[in-house]
């Protein structure tokens, strides 16, 4: 049994403008000691889905359905008291901006002691010992002295280390890291990722790493889920995502990362258009308005997340026939632009695939 199992999770918010379908039916699971990367643009629902695991999106205007099982226990229907016992205990979380995520008016030590004593019945002195131990573990020099400092007396990277120490002080089984490196310098980013990697190895903590940066997940994750408009559009082992991506959106993400090993004159290709409205999502495949390979049927048929033939554990929600997708990526990965790739793929006669095409026909 997986440590965390999310099934058909939907988080909808009623607003004055309509219902925002922030998360619209996602499923994933994380095993103990495993790292899952969730990648997507802002507004793809990646943060909302993980906040929901912690029960932090519960509100009057929120409708949450599906299932979130942690260690076999259902969290969606858990009472607020039960959830509180989980938050900061077995599941803990770190956030994007370490400056604003620590209370500016309390000393670091005090904030960590509070975290310890919320879940462990220990004296303040014992809790402080634990806090200092964790600060040392995450690489804060002179932890006992620094526990007496305020957050503004730390640099950005050090603050994120403090956040991580706070998240780890109750030996969580699962750490949810929501864009943990986005607000940091690149060099500091690498340090924080190394730290997460080291902690995962030493403490056997499962990690859900949420980011918009494929470069970040490439370094530390086992599996990757790509989210678009509140859904998972592709899910696979990290190596498969980078070597044989199946979804046009994933192609777009990959081709918009600068790489050292690509030819110097190769241009980065941005994904055209903007993320779709979550109130009135596009009909059919929600990526179709931005997809260079869109066909008429794609505006009507909503693709399901399906296994990629011949690739274990690789799932994709795309209406293009698998053979076409492979032909397209073969062209794109050599640096061809989408138009050229399309021409080659069509010429190769790869249009007659299986699976998705059958559904296209059924729909028309």
């Amino acid at each position, binding site marked *: 049994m997986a440590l965390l199992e999310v099934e058909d999770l939907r988080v909808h918010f009623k607003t004055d403008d309509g219902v925002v379908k922030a998360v619209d039916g996602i499923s994933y699971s994380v095993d103990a000691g495993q790292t899952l990367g969730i990648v997507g643009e802002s507004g793809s629902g990646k943060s909302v889905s993980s906040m929901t695991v*912690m029960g*932090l999106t519960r509100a009057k205007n929120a409708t949450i359905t599906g299932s979130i099982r942690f260690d076999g226990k259902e969290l969606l229907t858990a009472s*607020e008291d039960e959830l*509180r*016992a*989980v*938050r*900061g*205990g077995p599941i*803990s*979380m770190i*956030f994007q*901006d370490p400056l*604003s*995520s*620590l*209370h*500016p*008016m*309390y000393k670091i030590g005090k904030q960590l002691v*509070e*975290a310890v004593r*919320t*879940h462990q019945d220990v004296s303040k002195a014992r809790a402080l010992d634990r806090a200092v131990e964790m600060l040392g573990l995450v690489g804060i020099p002179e932890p006992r002295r620094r526990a007496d400092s*305020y957050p*503004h007396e730390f640099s950005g990277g050090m603050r994120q280390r403090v*956040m991580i120490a*706070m998240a780890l002080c109750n030996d969580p089984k699962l750490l949810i890291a929501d864009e943990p490196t986005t607000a940091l310098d690149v060099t500091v980013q690498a340090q924080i990722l190394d730290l997460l990697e080291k902690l995962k190895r030493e403490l056997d903590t499962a990690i859900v790493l949420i980011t918009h940066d494929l470069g970040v997940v490439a370094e530390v994750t086992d599996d990757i889920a790509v989210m678009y408009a509140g859904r998972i559009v592709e899910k696979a082992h990290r190596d498969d995502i980078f070597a044989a991506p199946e979804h046009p959106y994933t192609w777009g993400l990959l081709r918009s990362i600068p790489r050292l090993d690509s030819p110097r004159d190769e241009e980065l290709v941005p994904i055209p258009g903007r993320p779709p409205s979550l109130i009135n999502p596009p009909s059919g495949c929600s990526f179709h308005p931005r997809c260079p390979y869109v066909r008429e049927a794609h505006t009507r048929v909503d693709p399901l997340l399906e296994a990629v033939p011949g690739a274990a554990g690789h799932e994709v929600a795309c209406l293009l026939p698998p053979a076409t997708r492979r032909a397209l990526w073969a062209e794109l990965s050599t640096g061809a632009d989408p138009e050229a790739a399309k021409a080659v793929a069509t010429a190769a006669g790869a249009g007659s695939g299986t699976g998705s095409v059958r559904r296209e026909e059924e729909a028309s």
Partner: protein
Amino acid sequence: MGTYILRRLLWTVVLLFFVTALTFLIFNVLPTADPAKLRAGRNQTPETVAAIRDQLNLDDPFLTRFFSYLGDLLFHFDFGTSVLNDEPVRPLIFEALPNTLMLVLGAAVVWFVIGVVIGTISAVKRGSILDRVAMTTALVAISAPVYWLGLVALYLFSSDLGVLGLFPAAGTYDASRGVFTSISSLFLPWLVLAAAFSAIYARLLRSNLLETMSEDYIRTARAKGLKERTVVFKHGLRSAITPIITVLGLDIGILLGGAILTESVFGIPGIGRLSFDAIQRNDIDIVQGATLFLALGVCTMSLLVDVLYAFLDPRVRY
């Protein structure tokens, strides 16, 4: 910190000098009545008036008179003499000061507590009936003039003419009975003076707390598994209340110069009442003394608040 306080104290002295100069200028260059004539009594002759002018050095040049006033103030702590009953101003002010202090500090406690409690409830229960009722009441309380509110309060609650007769009547406050024995006479004035301030503080705290509760560190506090009560009171209120302490200090400072309306309606012999009477009678030296006190109050409290702020918010350094 030490040098900061020193610099602020020097500035306070400079400021007080200018306040003194300005009030002296206003009341001496633009006189509303001749002080000598005011003092000369009912059956005055030009001779007595001239004698008084001479005695008060009123014919000296402006600057000479100003520096003589300043000298008395600095070296003898002498605020001059009331022109009407020939009493020195200093004891008048010092007799009135404890009464104003009692009124203002008591009211400040009342409005701070009411403001914080109502503001917090309103913020936590935002959009509820409770919130709407509280904020509408606050709007009424801010809009109601103090003298009107005072008279209504007396009409409803004072023991002599009130419908309910819960509190001692106006004019029963008598400091000579000892400040603490006549404290019940202050209940009604406290409530009246505190009404508008409570409303302002409640609205201020409500909006501060709402803003704070959407901060990232509140999300962190929740993610730690803290009880919502702890999140609001320990993490939210701690940040939301800090700016309000600044406002509180300044408001107290201003009121130390006298809560003129409240003191007048309830017959409390404080600095406000003293200045009110003095202004009506053109008793220049008293007005000047009271104005100086007001300036001193504001300067002291704002310095105190700034120093206090450094302790309340560790990010502030001087």
